[in-house]
């Protein structure tokens, strides 16, 4: 599947950048927490509270 216009961004096979962010309950979640334990589906909803 070609990803047009995304040559400067991540691609399959790249290392996923780590992050550390609070969830809806204030609990801080780090991507590194899952390393070696679980695979992760990361879904970006850029504007979750707006339609579309």
């Amino acid at each position: 599947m070609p990803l047009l216009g995304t040559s400067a961004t991540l691609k399959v096979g790249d290392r996923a950048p780590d992050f550390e962010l609070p969830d809806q309950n204030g609990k801080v979640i780090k991507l590194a927490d899952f390393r070696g334990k679980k695979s992760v589906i990361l879904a970006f909803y850029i504007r979750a509270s707006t339609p579309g």
Partner: protein
Amino acid sequence: MLGISLDSQERNCKFAAETGATFPLLSDTEKQAAKAYGVLSFTRLFANRVTFVIDKDGIIRHIDEGSEAIDPSGAVQACSLPRKQ
């Protein structure tokens, strides 16, 4: 499964309650993760949803963008592969 939005924690809490989300919904108000993953450039060209599948070793195994990212079946399929080991 992790969801990330640029909304505040309060709005994410409301969104999670409204949608019955059972997964952590992370608040990226500083756009830290959105920038690291190049998601903001996606949104100029596509819809505002992008899904990454990351394996246990922290390697990206699958990327869905735009309307495909609404349907997680492709991502779930890709995610289930390493579990069979």
